[in-house]
C-alpha cells in the first residue's frame, strides 16, 4: 500500500469543476512528480491533500489513516509538510528561528509562557543541522527578509523539513529561479530523495524528469497520464498536448 493515497477527489468552486476523479498514490521513499499546464488544478490538488480545502467527494489516506477534511494543522502534525509556490516565511524572524519555530520540540512547548524559547541545545543543534542540509548554516542569524530569492527558496524547504515530515509536498520549488538556482535546488532535492517521501509540483520538465520516480500529469482537473518518466515520454497524450516540448 502506498504511503499517501487520494481516491476519486472531486472539488468545485461554484459551477466550476476544479478537480474531477483525481486519484493519486505516492509510494513511501519515492519521489513523485505532478505536472501540468497553468490552471490545471495542481496547486488546488495540493491544497486538498494538505487540508486547506475539503474535497466535495473522495478520500485522502495517509499511512492507512483517513485524513479527508482534517485541518492543515492536524495533517501537519501527522507528518505531512509542505512548501508554498508563493513563498510564505516568517519574514521578521531570523533564518534560525524560521526553522526552530517549526520544530516539533518547539510545538510541544507551546503552552510554556515563562521559559526560554530555544534553550535546549538539542533543539538548536537540530535547527542548525537542517540549515546545514539546505546550505544556509552560515546565514542562521540573518533576517529571513534579507535573504536572496534563491536562499529564500531553500529556507522554504528548510521550514518544511523542520516539521520532521514523513511526506514532503513541494509546490513549484524552482519558480522564479535562474538556471544556477535550479541546479542548486535540484542538488538539494536529490540529497533529500530516498530519505523521505517527496511529491513535487513542477513546470520545469527537465528538472522533474531527471529526479522523479513517477509522474502524474494533471490537465483540466483530471489525471490524464501517469507513469515513469520513460513511459510518459512514449505517451501519445502527453506528446500531443503542449507538454510535448519535453522531448
Amino acid at each position: 500500500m502506498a504511503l499517501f493515497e487520494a481516491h476519486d477527489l472531486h472539488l468545485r468552486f461554484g459551477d466550476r469543476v476544479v478537480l474531477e476523479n483525481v486519484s493519486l498514490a505516492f509510494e513511501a521513499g519515492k519521489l513523485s512528480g505532478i505536472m501540468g499546464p497553468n490552471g490545471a488544478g495542481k496547486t488546488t490538488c495540493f491544497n486538498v491533500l494538505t487540508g486547506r480545502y475539503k474535497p466535495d467527494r473522495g478520500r485522502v489516506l495517509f499511512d492507512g489513516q483517513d485524513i479527508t477534511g482534517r485541518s492543515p494543522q492536524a495533517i501537519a502534525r501527522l507528518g505531512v509538510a509542505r512548501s508554498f509556490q508563493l513563498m510564505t516565511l516568517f519574514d521578521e524572524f531570523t533564518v534560525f528561528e524560521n526553522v526552530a519555530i517549526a520544530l516539533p520540540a518547539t510545538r510541544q512547548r507551546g503552552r510554556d509562557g515563562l521559559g526560554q524559547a530555544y534553550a535546549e541545545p538539542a533543539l538548536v543543534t537540530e535547527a542548525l543541522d537542517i540549515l546545514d542540509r539546505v546550505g544556509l548554516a552560515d546565514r542562521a542569524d540573518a533576517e529571513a527578509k534579507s535573504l536572496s530569492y534563491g536562499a529564500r527558496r531553500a529556507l522554504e524547504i528548510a521550514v518544511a523539513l523542520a516539521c520532521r515530515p514523513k511526506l514532503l509536498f513541494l509546490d513549484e520549488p524552482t519558480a522564479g529561479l535562474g538556471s544556477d538556482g535550479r541546479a542548486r535546488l535540484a542538488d538539494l532535492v536529490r540529497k533529500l530523495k530516498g530519505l523521505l517521501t517527496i511529491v513535487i509540483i513542477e513546470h520545469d520538465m527537465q528538472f522533474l524528469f531527471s529526479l522523479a520516480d513517477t509522474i502524474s500529469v494533471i490537465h483540466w482537473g483530471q489525471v490524464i497520464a501517469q507513469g515513469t518518466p520513460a513511459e510518459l515520454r512514449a505517451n501519445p497524450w502527453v506528446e500531443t498536448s503542449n507538454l510535448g516540448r519535453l522531448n
Partner: protein
Amino acid sequence: MTQAGRPVPTFTTAMLASWLFFASVPLWIERVGLYQYLGVEILIFATYALAFNLVLGHAGLPSFGHGAFFGIGAYAFGLAQFNVVANLWLCLAAATLAAALSGALVAAFISHRRGIYYALMTIAFGQIFWFIAIKAHAITGGEDGLLKIARLPASLGVAAFDLKDNVALYYFVLVVFMGVSLLLWRLVHSPFGRIVKAIKQNETRARFVGYDVWRYKAAVLVISAALSGLAGALFAMAQTSAFPDVMSLHYSGYVVMMTLVGGGLVSFWGPVIGAGAFFLARDVIGALTTGWMLWFGLLFVVLVLFKPEGLAGMFASLTKRERKTAPAGAGRAQPQAGE
C-alpha cells in the same frame, strides 16, 4: 559563532532603568509643577497599554474594544468589595478573573477571524459591554457609575499598608506594574510568545507547520484581557469609583493611540512611553488650551505618517545614528534593548 538559541535575560537594563525611574517619580513630580495623582494615572495606563500591546503589537490582532476589559475589571473590583469581601487581594483577583472570562467569551467568537474582521468584531463586542454597563443600572449604577469604592489596605499578614494616600497608592501600582511588565517580558520571549509572533507574521504557514492558530489567538486575548482588568481594578481604586466611559469606543481608542504613539509595534516599552506622553500632553497642553486632544491627535497623525515606529522608534534611530559616528568597536551592535 551563531547567536541562535541564546537565552534572553530576565532583567534588562531598560527594564531596571524604567523601574528605577518610576520609583523616583514621587520625589520630584511636585517640584516640576505636576501632582502625585498624575503619576498614579500614568502607571495604571502604562500597565494597561502593556497588556493591550500583547494583542496589538505582539500578536498583530487589532483590538478596538479593549476598554471593555479595563472597565469590567474596574466594576468587578467594586462589586466584589461591596458584595463579597473587602479584601484587596481577593478583589484584585476577582477583577482579573472577570476580565479574563469576558476575554474568553469574546475570543470564542473572534479568534477565527483576522485583519479588519477581527477589528470590527472587537468594536462590536466593546460596544455591547459598554451598553450593558450603562443599562444595567441595578448592578453598575448606570451612567452615575459605581461610587465609594474603597482603596483597600494592602495586608501582607504581618503588616498592612494603607493606600489612601496617593504616594502610597503610587508605590503599590508600581509593584503591580513591575510584576506585569516582568511577566509580559517573559511571556513574549517564551515558546508561547514566539509562536504567537510567528502567527502574526504568517498565519497560513503557522497552520501548515502544525499550530492550532485560533487557540493561540484566543489565549493571547484572554491573557491581555485579564491584565487589562487588573489595571482597571487599580483605576477603580485610584478614582474610588467606576464609570462606563472608560469602556466607550473613544476610551478604547486612547489606549490604541498611547500604544502607537509610544511605539508598541517595535518596542516592548513603547506603550509605557506612550502612556506617559498621553497624560503629559493632556496636562501640559491642556493647561494652555481645552482643545489639547486636537494637538495630540495631530501629533498622532504626524507620527503615523512619518514615523510609524513611534517615539521608541525615533529614540532607537537616534541612538543608532550616534553609534555609527562613535569610534569603531565602541558601539558593538547590541540586540535591540526594546525587543
